């Protein structure tokens, strides 16, 4: 039985239906199946970087990531915070990148740190930029660039 007929038959069972439909997506949209096996990097509009396995997508670039984690980078420190299964609305997606397994994911100068440490570093960085912003505001009357 062709796959699309089978999908119609299974419409009353949601789980089977979804499984088969995602199979159809794989069959039609992707000649290159590797994007479902490899880890992907998804860049969001707010600058967040999510890593995970692609499980499904559609024409709006809505994306489902399995085993997703957020990679927080502050200076030379980084941390992968595990998140689980993520459904990302397409409008927030900037870019979806395939990672090259042969290459290092990050430059060798970067050091992995714990979640608590990266949160602290993130906070410090945010306070520093806030301070810079308020200083600039106070000095605005000097009219420099």
């Amino acid at each position, binding site marked *: 039985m062709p796959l699309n007929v089978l999908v119609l038959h299974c419409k009353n069972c949601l789980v089977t239906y979804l499984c088969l439909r995602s199979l159809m997506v794989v069959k039609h949209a992707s000649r290159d199946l590797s994007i479902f096996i490899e880890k992907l990097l998804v860049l969001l509009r707010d600058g967040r970087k999510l890593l995970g396995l692609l499980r499904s997508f559609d024409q709006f670039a809505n994306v489902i990531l399995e085993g997703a984690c957020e990679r927080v980078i502050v200076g030379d420190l980084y941390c992968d915070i595990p998140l689980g299964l993520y459904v990302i609305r397409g409008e927030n997606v*900037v870019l*979806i990148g395939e*990672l090259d397994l042969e290459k290092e994911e990050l430059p060798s100068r*970067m050091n992995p740190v714990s979640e608590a440490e990266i949160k602290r570093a993130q906070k410090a960085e945010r306070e520093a930029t806030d301070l810079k912003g308020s200083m600039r505001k106070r000095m605005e009357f000097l009219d420099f660039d």
Partner: protein
Amino acid sequence: MQLFFSYFKDLVGREVTVELKNDLAIRGTLHSVDQYLNIKLENTRVVDQDKYPHMLSVRNCFIRGSVVRYVQLPPEGVDIELLHDATRREARGG
């Protein structure tokens, strides 16, 4: 919009630089483009590598059309005569 779509389709296989609205600039070979002007690039490299370390190992990528600010084209990819014709045809209504 059709005009830009077909124009970008002609550019497939060429080296372009895509600048995004978040100032990230990516250079790569144009692999494909669709009606929303979503872009797929191959053999990508980020122009300012040091500022975006997380992009180091990204080889191929999909860019959502709505976040693109500029696409820098190769000079030999611009055929002015052809574009003139196409725009006139568009203005006349197809």
